[in-house]
């Protein structure tokens, strides 16, 4: 049976044109953040360097989630890679803007433009 964190947050990873594409859907909050951190950091450590976080299916993020995304970006940078973000919308876009994350991390309107232009 799926745990609560698994129901609230869906994660997947695939390789596309040299990028590791991490898709995050649902909610990234105090309840689900540990699961995201564990899984995403494992993908970063196993990957080849550059990471796109596809957030087009993310409905909610709190500062707990932001903190983990920042940690992920630093981890990727530590491996001489880049982490970019695609598909911000609604509340998530607003949270990124208020927190200054749109200036800290390169952001693109969708996955396609991230892979093409980043």
């Amino acid at each position: 049976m799926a745990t609560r964190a698994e129901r609230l947050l869906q994660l997947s990873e695939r390789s596309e044109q040299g990028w590791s594409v991490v898709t995050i859907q649902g909610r990234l909050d105090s309840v689900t953040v540990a699961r995201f951190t564990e899984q995403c950091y494992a993908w970063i450590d196993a990957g080849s360097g550059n990471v796109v976080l596809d957030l087009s299916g993310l409905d909610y993020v709190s500062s707990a989630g932001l903190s983990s995304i920042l940690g992920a970006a630093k981890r990727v940078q530590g491996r001489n890679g880049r982490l970019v973000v695609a598909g911000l919308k609604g509340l998530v876009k607003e949270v990124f803007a208020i927190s200054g994350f749109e200036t800290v991390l390169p952001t693109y309107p969708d996955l396609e433009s991230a892979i093409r232009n980043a």
Partner: protein
Amino acid sequence: MVSFVLGWARRVVPAEKAARLELAVEEWAANVCRHAYPEGGGALEVSVRAEPGRVVVEIADDGCPFDPIAMRAPDVSLPLAERQLGGLGVLLIKRMLEDVRYRREGDHNIVTFTVSR
């Protein structure tokens, strides 16, 4: 707790505003858990009042005095390597909601979040 507040909020205000309230409640609860009780656990009391056209959420704790209104905003323009996340939760609360109030009553911190339709 957050879903309890959200359930009430959705009856009164549009989903987009209910989500802002939800975020504020999560951030404040996280803040209380992290800072209010340095010596261990303590109380957190949440009440929701649904009035015509608005929702009022009051959250009380009896931990260390902490006024979010007086808190200085963190510098959100720093580059990646220098970014720290302290204070981000309170910044989000103040920017997401139009009406945030704080009072110290006896041994209690009480914050009030109001969201109108």
